């Protein structure tokens, strides 16, 4: 079972306490954007085999959204961090990079 630490409550919450919110750090293209941009924003996801950044909500706990970095293949969790950011913390990216030198990095 997937267990993530909620960065707001500090509790180790398992996935039945959480609700998944899909890929993290999407840039929104709304009114005024081109059809291609809008299509990409709506439908195109990385869906990687390996390191993935996701949004999760601690739904039956504090109710807050947060981010998690985990591996979609091994289910290893690299870390969680609050939602008030546009990109993953540098330390976390460095930590993952150290562990998986072949990983292409965030982006």
């Amino acid at each position, binding site marked *: 079972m997937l267990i993530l630490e909620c960065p707001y409550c500090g*509790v180790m*919450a398992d996935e039945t306490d959480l609700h998944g919110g899909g890929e993290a750090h999407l840039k929104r293209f709304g009114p005024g954007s081109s059809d291609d941009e809008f299509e990409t924003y709506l439908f195109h996801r990385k869906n990687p085999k390996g390191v993935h950044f996701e949004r999760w909500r601690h739904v039956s*706990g*504090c*109710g807050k959204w947060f981010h998690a970095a985990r591996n979609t293949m091994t289910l290893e969790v690299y870390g969680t961090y609050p939602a008030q950011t546009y990109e993953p913390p540098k330390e976390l990216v460095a930590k993952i990079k150290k562990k998986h030198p072949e990983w292409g990095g965030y982006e």
Partner: protein
Amino acid sequence: MSNAVSALQGASFDGYCKVEEAGLTGMITLRGDLASKGVAKAVKAVTGAAMPGQGEVTEGDKGRVGWMSPDELLLIVDHAEAPAIVDAATASLGDEHSLVVNVSDARAVYRVKGAACREIIAKLAPADTSVMQPGMLRRTRIAQVPAAFYLEDDETAVVVCFRSVAQYAFDLLKDAAQPGGEVGVL
């Protein structure tokens, strides 16, 4: 105004732990910046309790204060005094960006009494109840509904849930406390 009644009006069940509905309990939601002095002062003034830290519940002479999320507190007070406490807290907070609402009648509260109270909750919630001590509060779910619980003492757990699922929550706790269902690990 009509008489206030609690969700299950004190229903109880004697299993290997005693499960009872706690009756009328005053509950107030306070939202705001928990780091601000104004909020701490208001909380102290109306309950006598200190500001709880992350995942804690504190006790004062007029009630308890539980940490529900980074911007939310639950004040557990006397049911009849709750409206006055809401007014007092609102006045004390003044211009501070905050919200104080009496949610007493939207909640149901249960007490699980017995040496195995942690085990009863562990059967229903995905929380590690073995680490729970008096003074800690955990918001989680019991079976399919959201609930929060804390320990009043080592053998009394208090479970708070929404009133709309009061019967469901009571049935769950009752079922978990059925004699013969002892696990004996906690």
